[in-house]
């Protein structure tokens, strides 16, 4: 029992400090809410510096699967998996380098708080704003459930406490601290989470190396027993098509993920952006190489076949933690993956709330000329965040199958829906309302349908079909539809 308490304590202390940080930030922010509550709550009054911008973007992007499922695959596939994961170093300079400044300038000019504000204004369409809001809320919610479940399962496996205890310890707290802290709270806690992830990674690597008898011995064993792990194609387990698929899915098209793009509205100046691109690229590379390398090295302590470990690669990292570290160190280490999970949840939860409150509720009220007093906007925002968070928490206790399907569809679905709407909207004058609506609807539909039926072109992941369909729809719709008003275009070009 003692050991279990020692394993639980670090996570508990970490979560309490996250909560404390959010409360303190909220109090200090409340004093200087000169720009208004909504802007402060949803994008931190455009004040993020380079370090925090880099860390919050990386932390949102690194989910529990970067710490559990991914390294588990690396344990099975070998160095090919690390080689595949390193393609994510392109994510930061793509999203911040291509869209970062344009979104920031336009966002200031039209006073945008959410990415949907920008989309609505650029395309002059309430329909596309509505569709965006639905897609964001549905896919984000499914992703959040997966993060809750992943974190709680890991917690259960490492500490020995029940799944539900884990869910309560970090799940309830993340909902509360996101509700209290708003965007600024999310950004700062994300930064602490990113640091915790790196620390957990270093600890675990040291533990695995020691327990496995040192690097030389682990590698000699791999070379003798599983030599295919040392080849890029892993004896056929890691085909070229999988590399191409991953390049698109977790590399290039992450440029369209709304949860990353919204960060372009939140930073202070171009210096911060430049700083964040460099720092973020360094951290994303270190995390992906480091964590997946740990997966490979876990062969040293978990040398048998997958059957011996419950037939799921998701069990590898929890077992590696439990077998290589003392309860206290194990407890400190799992802060890393739990931090990865909560930092993704906090950003998605707040973005989903902003879609409901800012893009639907406040917008509809404004359109009807009904002023919403600041105090009501504040209460509604926090209430909505709390209710949505608790709802997702409740679903996570026993998630239905449909949530898993939605989660599998979420990443590529969001990319197919948004990538051209953002890119072409910012860089192609002819992109218009018709093109955007077609692109978003068709891209998402085609992607989901081909995923359901398992239809692929040349063995490459359905993201390829999704982005081609949404690109074709954007071009066709824009050429056939009505031209956007020159006055609007003047703001963007």
């Amino acid at each position, binding site marked *: 029992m003692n050991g279990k308490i020692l394993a639980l304590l670090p996570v508990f202390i970490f979560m309490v400090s996250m909560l404390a940080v959010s409360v303190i930030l909220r109090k200090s922010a409340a004093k200087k809410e000169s720009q208004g509550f909504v802007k402060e709550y949803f994008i931190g009054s455009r004040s993020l510096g380079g370090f925090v911008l880099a860390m919050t973007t990386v932390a949102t992007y690194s989910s529990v699967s970067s710490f559990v499922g991914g390294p588990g695959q690396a344990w099975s596939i070998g160095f090919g998996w690390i080689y595949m994961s390193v393609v994510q*170093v*392109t994510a930061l300079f*793509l999203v911040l380098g*291509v869209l970062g400044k344009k979104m920031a300038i336009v966002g200031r*000019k039209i006073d945008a708080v959410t990415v949907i504000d920008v989309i609505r204004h650029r395309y002059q369409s309430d329909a596309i704003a509505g569709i965006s809001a639905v897609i964001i809320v549905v896919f984000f919610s499914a992703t959040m459930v997966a993060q809750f479940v992943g974190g709680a399962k890991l917690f259960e496996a490492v500490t020995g406490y029940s799944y539900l205890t884990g869910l309560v310890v970090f799940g309830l707290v993340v909902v509360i601290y996101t509700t209290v802290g708003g965007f600024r709270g999310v950004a700062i806690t994300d930064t602490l989470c990113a640091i915790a992830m790196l620390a957990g990674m270093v600890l675990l690597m040291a533990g695995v190396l020691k327990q496995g008898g040192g690097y030389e011995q682990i590698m000699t064993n791999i070379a003798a027993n599983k030599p295919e792990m040392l080849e890029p194609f892993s004896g056929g387990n890691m085909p070229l098509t999988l590399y191409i698929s991953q390049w698109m899915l977790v590399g290039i098209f992450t440029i369209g993920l709304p949860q990353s793009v919204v960060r372009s509205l939140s930073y202070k*100046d*171009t210096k911060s952006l430049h700083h964040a691109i*460099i720092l973020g690229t360094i951290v994303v590379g270190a995390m992906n*190489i480091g964590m997946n390398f740990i997966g490979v090295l876990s062969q040293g302590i978990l040398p048998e076949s997958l059957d011996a470990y419950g037939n799921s690669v998701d069990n590898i990292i929890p077992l590696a933690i439990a077998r290589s570290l003392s309860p206290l160190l194990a407890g400190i280490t799992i802060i890393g993956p739990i931090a990865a999970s909560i930092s993704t949840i906090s950003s998605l939860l707040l973005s989903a709330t902003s879609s409901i409150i800012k893009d639907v509720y406040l917008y509809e009220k404004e359109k009807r000329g009904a002023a919403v007093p600041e105090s009501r906007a504040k209460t509604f925002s926090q209430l909505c965040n709390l209710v949505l968070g608790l709802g997702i928490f409740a679903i996570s206790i026993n998630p239905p199958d449909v949530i898993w399907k939605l989660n599998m569809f979420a990443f590529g679905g969001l990319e197919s829906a948004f990538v051209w709407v953002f890119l072409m909207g910012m860089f192609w004058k002819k992109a218009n309302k018709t093109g955007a609506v077609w692109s978003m609807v068709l891209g998402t539909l085609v992607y989901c349908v081909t995923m359901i039926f398992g239809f692929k072109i040349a063995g490459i992941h359905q993201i390829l079909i999704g982005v081609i369909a949404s690109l074709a729809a954007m071009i066709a719709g824009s050429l056939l539809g009505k031209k956007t008003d020159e006055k609007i275009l003047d703001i963007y070009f």
Partner: protein
Amino acid sequence: MNRKQKYGQIRKEAIACFWALLAVIVFWTISGIGVSRLNITIFHTPLWAITGCIGTWIFSVVLVIWLVKHVFMDFSLDDDETLEMEAADER
């Protein structure tokens, strides 16, 4: 810089990012799959894993630093034209 000039600069930066992406893809392919053909192992580690993973990472960081120093430019994100017009009015 007025807004149009900023947008011109942003376009330049976006295109540079596209070329940087291509450069990373080429580097990644040669340093990983390419080098694996050599069958060299150092420190019990296949050389391709070091050049393909750590090499690609370092290459990207260096590339991004170069981009920021030589292509990217600092400018105000607020609309200078409006600010300038206001300043002119005051004068």
